[in-house]
């Protein structure tokens, strides 16, 4: 908790507050809604960039904490932002249905399956970004480029799948409440993937940060 407070009070970047609000893009017709998650990845990049500019690692490692504590706190903090984004996406989906649902030609429709899609996007982002970032914390841009590439590759595949893959086209990309059990299964599967992937990311990042020589 102390480390989370440290992340919030000293490392939080204004983008961390603003980018989850991009969940409101779900209200825009014909928008690839998976991109809402990318904006949170952008906020995470800015947080790591700010941490570098403020010599956060040098400060943190003189506190009575281990390197592993520092990695866990940062990833948990970023995961909270991702969760906040998903909650806001959920709210925006409800708002969209309340004001009148319009099918989305650019990928999955707004609905429960979109939350599952967001979880997959965050899983990919976390699995690529954090191990790469903690290999060299002075190069968050490199980690962000790799993670963004993975995220957009998935978003393109997901959009293509809504036209070509029957499970996506005929089940996930249909308005709620159609096929809710399949969509719930997909979303819970994505949640399990998110938990496992982020846990793997944390362990890998921790190992890389343990091995890193810091030039402070």
């Amino acid at each position, binding site marked *: 908790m102390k480390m989370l407070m440290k992340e919030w009070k000293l490392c939080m970047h204004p983008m961390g507050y603003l980018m989850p609000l991009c969940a409101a893009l779900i209200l825009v017709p014909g928008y690839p809604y998976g991109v809402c998650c990318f904006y949170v990845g952008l906020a995470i990049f800015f947080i790591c960039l700010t941490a570098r500019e403020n010599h956060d690692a040098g400060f943190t490692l*003189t506190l009575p*904490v281990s390197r592993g504590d520092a990695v866990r706190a940062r990833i948990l903090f970023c995961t909270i932002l991702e969760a906040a984004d998903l909650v806001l996406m959920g709210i925006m989906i409800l708002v969209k249905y309340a004001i009148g649902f319009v099918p989305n030609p650019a990928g999955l429709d707004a609905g429960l399956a979109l939350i599952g899609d967001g979880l997959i996007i965050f899983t990919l982002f976390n699995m690529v970004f954090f191990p790469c970032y903690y290999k060299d914390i002075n190069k968050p841009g490199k980690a962000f480029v790799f993670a963004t590439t993975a995220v957009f590759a998935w978003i393109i595949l997901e959009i293509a799948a809504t036209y070509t893959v029957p499970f996506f086209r005929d089940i996930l990309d249909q308005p709620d409440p159609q096929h809710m059990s399949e969509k719930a299964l997909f979303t819970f599967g994505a949640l399990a993937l998110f938990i496992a992937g982020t846990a793997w990311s944390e362990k890998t990042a921790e190992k890389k940060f343990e091995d890193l020589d810091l030039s402070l």
Partner: protein
Amino acid sequence: MASEKNSPLTVRDLCKNYPSFRLDNVSFSLAAGEITGFIGRNGAGKTTTINAMLFLVHPDGGEISFFGLPFPENDREIKAKIGFVSAGMTYYTRKKLKVITDVTRSFYPGWDDGVYRSYMTAFGLDGEKTPAELSNGMKIKYALALALSHGAELLILDEPTSGLDPISREELVEIFLKLRDEGKTVFFSTHITSDLEKCADRILFLQQGSLKADDTLDGFRDSWRIAECSGELPPALKQAAHGLCRTREGYTVLVRKEDAETFRAREATLEEIMIHLEKEADAQ
């Protein structure tokens, strides 16, 4: 050398290899309640030694213990008893000091708000300011206030007086002496040797990654003398010389105390010793 068992810091055979630099089996032990000056020219390896001591960089060999406890195995316990201050204190330059303090305080069960306030007042620091608004000297004082408020028994300072004006340096030296009077141990790297002349009890001299001297300040200074020569160096002096420096009048050379009478040499300052030994190393 201090007794290792009771020493606030013991470093044994510390090594770190880089493609163009090698920290070579550095060993020393600090005595509690003393100010130890860690001197050497820029690039000698002072910061690398400190970073390796704190495992900010991974040593390729060697053992480190603080207060008799191996590091980094006992890192949390040890870090609660030490304070590290690096030159410039460049952390979170746009955050208010009170915010940085609030975060720092939460990590130390032994944090003393009364002590913190007294140091903030004594150092003329305002919690509403940000590090960006502080002079370099004030940044160091703030970092010291944080370290002292959690009851650090050992202060490790990396070039704390670097870039400060003479008055600010003098103020810091007085603070270090006051801390020593309170029983704190201060380990202080610098290349500004005149500061150490005023406060250090011991001197560690690092040259090209190797520890060349570990002695009391008086003992180290007393080992050497400076001989001055207005013209060509006599062969005997040339043979006894450890480093040659050009001056307006001619040359100065460093000689061993035993040769002092032969060459009518005078006492040497710490700076003269360091410069001449570095000149000697450069010439080799």
